Each structure stands twice: as C-alpha cells, then as structure tokens.
C-alpha cells in the first residue's frame, strides 16, 4: 500500500471518529473514541515519518489522558446532558473558520516539496551541524535539548505547573487523612 493511500485511509477514519465523538451522548464511549482518535493520529504521524511525535501522541493521547478522562468520568454523570436548541450560530462559525483555513492552505507549497520554506530555512543548517556539534545521531533530540533548550525548559516548567495546578485543585484529600491516621 502506498503511503498516500494509508494517509487517506487514516484521515477518513479520523474524521469518522471525530463525527462519532460529536454525535454520541455516552461519555464512556466518547472517552474510548477519543483514545482511538489519538491512536489513529499516532499512526498518521508514523506514516509522515514523525516517529517522535507519534510516540508522544500514542503515550499521552492514547494512554494517560484516557485514564485521566475515565477518572474524571467517575466523578460526574455518564451521559451528556441534552440541550434543547441546535447551535446554528456555532455551526456557521465553524464552517466559516474551516473554509478560511482551507482557503489559507491553497497558497501553501505542495506536500513534501523540497522548496518549501520550512526545508530551506534552518533545517538544512541543523542537519549539517547537529551530529558534529552535539555528537547525537537523533537530530530531533539535539534540536529539542540543545539548540532549542530554552523551549524545552519552558515545556518542562509548563508540565510542572500543570501538576501543581491539579494538586492545588484536587489535592491528595483522602490519602492524606489515611496516611495521617497511620502516623
């Protein structure tokens, strides 16, 4: 099977999963479909040769966030509440924004084109320098940890902040009491 065919297949499945997520009212099914959505997206990234991104998507989107959603689901109701009205304005807004985005992509260079600005700006520089300067064969790692070290420090801090925020909101309530009792 050609990569293009796999791309089209995966994108079709992605769109179907997204539609099913919108249509379904049972939140448990929605959570499972969201996990499948991430898995399909990860497959798509592998097909686009972005293994590092695919790895992250599969682990975070397909794994951890599904478990967290299920945890959150036990604290709330299992079914989405029905709203009386149909959100025509929101649908119109989505359609207009979507059409605008599609219009924007018409100007973009052809998919995989070697002349695209993204391939002519800093990328060749990194490819030429990374191995000699850092001794690390995986250029993605070299860029993330060294050339773009500031960004990754920022990302790590964001994850730290997210952890702190969740702990401030939820705390370790039950366990703390129990642990306190044992001591």
């Amino acid at each position, binding site marked *: 099977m050609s990569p293009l065919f796999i791309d089209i297949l995966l994108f079709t499945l992605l769109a179907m999963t997204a539609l099913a997520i919108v249509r379904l009212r049972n939140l448990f099914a929605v959570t499972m479909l969201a996990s499948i959505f991430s898995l399909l997206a990860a497959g798509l990234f592998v097909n686009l040769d972005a293994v590092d991104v695919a790895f992250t998507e599969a682990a975070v989107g397909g794994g951890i966030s599904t478990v967290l959603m299920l945890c959150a689901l036990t604290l709330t109701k299992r079914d989405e509440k029905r709203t009386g009205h149909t959100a025509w304005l929101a649908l119109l807004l989505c359609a207009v924004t979507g059409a605008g985005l599609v219009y924007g992509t018409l100007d973009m260079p052809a998919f995989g084109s070697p002349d695209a600005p993204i391939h002519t700006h800093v990328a060749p520089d990194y490819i030429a320098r990374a191995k000699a300067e850092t001794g690390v064969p995986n250029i993605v790692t070299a860029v993330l940890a060294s050339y773009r070290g500031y960004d*990754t420090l920022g990302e790590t801090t964001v994850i730290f902040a997210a952890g702190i925020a969740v702990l401030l909101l939820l705390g370790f309530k039950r366990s703390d009491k129990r642990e306190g009792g044992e001591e």
Partner: protein
Amino acid sequence: MSHHLVLRVVANLLLPFILVFALYVQWHGDNGPGGGFQAGVVFAAGMILYALVYGVDALKKVIPAKTSIILMSLGVLIYAGTGLSSLFLGHDFLDYSGLAANSTQGQERGILIVELGVGIAVAGAMIAIFTAFAGRTPEIEDKEW
C-alpha cells in the same frame, strides 16, 4: 479489580517490560526516537497500570504522593541547574559546551542530563496528577460499567 485474574496476570507480565522500555527510551533517546518526555510518560503509564490493577493505595506504597511532588520539582531543578552550571562554567545559559573536556562531548553530556530532568519531571507530574484524580474517585463497582 483484585479479583480479575486475567487482568492481573497480564499486567504482571507487561509491567517489567513497560518499565524497562521506559528506561530504554530515556537513555536511547539520543540515538532513536524518544527522549525524556516519552520515557517519563511511559514510566508513569506503567505505574498507572499497576494502580489500576492493584488499587491506588498499592501505588502509594511504591511512590507516595509526596515523592511524586518531589520528583516533578527535582526534574525541573535538574534541567535549570544544568543551565545554571553551564553559566558558571563560562558559557551561555543552557550551552552545554563546558560540561566536558571538548565541546561535542559537553553537548552530549548536557543533552543526556537535561533529558533525564525532563523524564523525571514528566513521570513525577503524571503520577501526581493520576494520584490526585484517583484519590478523589470512589470505588467503582463492576456492574456500574
């Protein structure tokens, strides 16, 4: 879920491989796909699997809530500390060239340390978030699903 024999056996079989795979992704991230972030998430996923099968209290015996907070702070500190130490060695912030005898080895070492920091921070944060969520969740009866 302690009475689900099949789940327990499968989880027991998978767990060591998941944890070793996390370490592989951590230390092999500079050669293949992966790195600190993915390693941290895979490690946390292993711990969450353990908690799903044996209960959150069992997980808390392995990694108490406090330890996960310390881990996620430690990870960020390792990262920022590496940046600061390169500052003290006479280079720019997060320029690892001075961490070893020559600049290439310094970069390699710096990347390894920084990725370890990311891994520890991510694993700690994920485990902490899961523990916080799961601690809130009442025990679920099988029939409810």
